[in-house]
């Protein structure tokens, strides 16, 4: 079903609600004294958008706005993921002292704009649309990274992010121009037809794909486009770092999958995808994935700042997630979607603990977590242990199930070397995650360490995320069916 501009509007309700909320927040910001209310308004807006998105599950799939965007289960899945991340991050921001010092109206509006950009990233079916969506997310991210007033680290991070981002998107649009030159089209559907029917130059295509990968890889954070991430993670306001680590990563995966799977691969009847023959892009991705996870984990080993460590751990996780794409099978893609949901929960949880501890102590160094379990409420320490062990991939926690599906997909397609590299990396990662757990539980606090207090709202969120991490580790049947169902692209 191809929809024109007017007919598309009916299916554009989630975006409208989100855009309306952004405007409402900006207007309310002028008059309202209690800035916390703005975050609550944003949360309500996101919830409305969420329910509107859920309602679209009944709608027939199709291409909207003259084939600019797809309406299918795949895009709906990523919209729900983005909204969940936004809601959780806004909730997290409510309890953050760091965010309380900012211009909260603008903070919320920018966060929501970023989420809106991610909506477009998830559904774009045209290279130009994809580029614009990516830029929308990038620009809001640059601003939010440098949002801490009079903070040199934050400003430096923002500048670094901007420069890297400009280079990456420059490379990407250059790659897109090659594709356009070879096929005469920006539309995924036509591009697919031309590539598979004609006989384009394989080397030129390979180069174009690698250039495009620079732009996507910069969002997903894989090597060698990862250099910005440790500085940005460390410098940005913590709740936004959390947002960046899960939502931005997920949107990057969405745009990557939609381009490299339905647009330039073909799905066989056995559930395996066939990439354009003669283009060694999957092998390239295989190497990238292995290097990414190894480099991320090895660099994380020696970090002293927890946010920085989580940045490197995020790089490693990007490597794990990529495994699902390397194997070119529906099982792999499904495992990626599953992992994104699980990663969202456990990583946001870990950042929430960072926020809670920073509120009480102002410290983000691992040393500031000394004896956390024995300083007032033990809940943050226990929750952190759950999240970190889940990130390691230990059962019975959600992270294990996520890794299990990824490994299963890899073994099924007989990529044994990749599987071995990945499990070896899991063992390495245990070392640095366990180091934090060690500091929290095995070391004892010194008299100078302040006690940790939990406000009820953060405590509720922390409880919610820990319980979800546990429950998804034991009973994940519904989530698997949901991801299976979400793996439906509308192409034409």
């Amino acid at each position, binding site marked *: 079903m191809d929809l024109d501009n007017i007919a598309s509007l009916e299916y554009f309700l989630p975006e409208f609600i989100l855009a309306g909320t952004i405007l409402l927040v900006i207007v309310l910001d002028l008059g309202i004294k209690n800035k916390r209310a703005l975050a609550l308004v944003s949360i309500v807006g996101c919830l409305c958008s969420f329910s509107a998105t859920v309602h679209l599950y009944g709608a027939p799939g199709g291409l909207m706005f003259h084939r600019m965007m797809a309406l299918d289960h795949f895009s709906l899945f990523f919209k729900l993921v983005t909204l969940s991340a936004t809601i959780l991050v806004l909730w997290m921001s409510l309890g953050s002292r760091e965010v309380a010092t900012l211009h909260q109206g603008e903070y919320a509006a920018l966060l929501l704009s970023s989420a809106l950009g991610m909506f477009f990233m998830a559904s774009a079916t045209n290279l130009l649309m994809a580029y614009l969506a990516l830029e929308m997310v990038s620009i809001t991210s640059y601003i939010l990274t440098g949002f801490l007033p009079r903070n040199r680290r934050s400003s430096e991070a923002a500048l670094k992010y901007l420069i890297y981002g400009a280079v990456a998107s420059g490379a990407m649009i250059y790659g897109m121009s090659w594709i356009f030159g070879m096929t005469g089209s920006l539309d995924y559907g036509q591009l697919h037809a031309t590539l598979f029917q004609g006989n384009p130059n394989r080397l030129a295509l390979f180069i174009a794909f690698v250039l495009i990968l620079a732009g996507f890889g910069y969002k997903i954070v894989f090597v060698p486009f990862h250099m910005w991430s440790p500085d940005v993670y460390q410098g940005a306001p913590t709740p936004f770092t959390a947002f960046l680590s899960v939502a931005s990563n997920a949107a990057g995966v969405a745009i990557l999958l939609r381009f490299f799977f339905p647009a330039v691969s073909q799905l066989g009847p056995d559930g395996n995808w066939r990439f354009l023959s003669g283009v060694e892009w999957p092998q390239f991705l295989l190497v990238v994935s292995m290097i990414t996870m190894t480099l991320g984990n090895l660099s994380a080993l020696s970090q002293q700042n927890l946010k920085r460590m989580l940045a490197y751990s995020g790089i490693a996780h990007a490597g794990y997630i990529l495994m699902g794409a390397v194997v070119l099978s529906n099982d792999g893609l499904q495992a990626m979607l599953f992992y994104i949901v699980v990663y969202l929960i456990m990583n946001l949880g870990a950042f929430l603990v960072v926020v809670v501890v920073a509120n009480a102590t102002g410290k983000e160094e691992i040393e500031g977590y000394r004896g956390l379990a024995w300083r007032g409420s033990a809940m943050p320490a226990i929750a952190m242990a759950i999240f970190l*062990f889940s990130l390691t991939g*230990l*059962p*019975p926690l959600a992270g*294990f199930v996520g890794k*299990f599906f990824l*490994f*299963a997909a890899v*073994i*099924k397609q007989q990529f044994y070397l990749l*599987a*071995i590299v990945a*499990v*070896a990396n*899991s*063992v390495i990662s*245990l*070392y640095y995650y*366990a180091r934090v757990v*060690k500091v929290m*539980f*095995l070391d004892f606090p010194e008299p100078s360490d302040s006690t940790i207090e939990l406000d009820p709202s953060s405590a509720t969120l922390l409880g919610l995320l820990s319980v979800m991490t546990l429950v998804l580790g034991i*009973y*994940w*049947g519904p989530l*698997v*069916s949901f991801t299976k169902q979400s793996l439906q692209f509308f192409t034409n």
Partner: protein
Amino acid sequence: MTDHVLSYMAFFPLAGAVAVLLLPSSRPNWIRWTSVIFTVPPLLLGVWLYFHFDPNNPGLQFVEKFAWIPSYNIQYFVGIDGISISMVLLTALLSFLCIFASWGIEKGVKGYYALFLLLDTGMVGVFIALDFFLFYIFWEVMLLPMYFLIGIWGGPRREYAAIKFFLYTLFGSVLMLLAILALYFTSEPHTFDMTQLIAQGANYSTKPIGMWPFDQLRWGFQHIVWMGLFIGFAIKIPAFPFHTWLPDAHVEAPTAISVILAGVLLKMGTYGILRINFPMLPQATADLSYAFLGVLGTWNIIYGALCAMAQKDFKKLVAYSSVSHMGYVMLGMASFTPQGINGAVLQMFNHGIITGMLFLMVGVIYDRAHHREIEGFGGLAAVMPVYTAISALAIFASMGLPGLSGFISEVLVLLGSWQKSPVLTAFAATGVILTAGYLLWTVQRVYLGMTNEKYKLMPEINARELFTMIPLGIIVIIVGVYPSVVLDLLRASLNQLNQVVIPHLS
């Protein structure tokens, strides 16, 4: 009630962990007694199992099975047979006694008992799980509590010991995970059900893979999977060269945890090989077990004994004696004779009981003297006669004195392996002499001779400590005099297991 005996045994302690968490931490005694209350039912159920287990049935008994995650064919599937029953009983008994052995823990009592009970669930679960996925979950569930129990309540180098244990075991288990997935995708329809995976044994190719070094070794898919599983299990046993975590973990762990580590956790390695490698991959077992079980086992016996002899720390000596004694289990398994394999499993059981006693024995003097230097004691027999008597029982049992349980299993192992390889058996037999050497030397230095002035007034072993050791002592004597009480349970299943592998031996 009786339909779900095994589940009750596994999950009672978990319920106990939750109950303990709900109690106020200001009442340590409530917590301790609650833990007792939740470990008694598994023990009583274990006794019930002992009397209702049909020893002539080689198949699975007390089976429970229902779908867990149907889309991936993952089931909750538990049951026991002759391979596992002795381990389940051992776990129930040692967990119960270790609650008492932990009475002296004062720091973070609530956390300690909650983690201990969680560990208990994991241990029972491993021995009863028959679905590979479930098995792996239980296997890993033990890791976390163990890390904290060693890391928080352990000795001076506890942090190092805890992370070393954790990393070693995780390394082994991820290899195991890959092997499990490889088997899953080879089976048709894909399944984690161990009984079905065994039935599909013919699917696991033994054709050598044309890639170096596998073409030289003549290893096929089956051999590689075997090795993946074996390394995972060998780390737990621990077989040389994966044993280095053991002395650290045992020495740093609190007494009760050392008992659990040596008594139960080490057995999981050999249990896993018997439960999984033997029936599922019989050809690879036949090809590889001489080198990796027989030779390594013999090496474990001698190497462990020599290391034990060189130790100055009493607990480390006991730890290395475990390495040595687990070697007998491996050697017995590699023989594929009825005596050998029955002796191996009996040795697993006996070693659990005897080493448990030995660690409790070390714990008693450590609690009093706050050090474990063998040379620092002397003449304790005069000061603590009751303690010395019961220690002597444990030490002589460990040495393999006729009439005590260790003797029976070691003789069975040696009898069995003689039929297979007199050379290995001859080497292994020298281990018996070395064992007698280091143990008697220890008796001489700690219990006999001049009494050390410092310990003239050392209080005698108390009632609680006696209560933890006496049941084990009684079992040592009963099994030593009349081994059929245990052997009868094992025989049918183990002989059937042997028959699976024997046709593949060249």
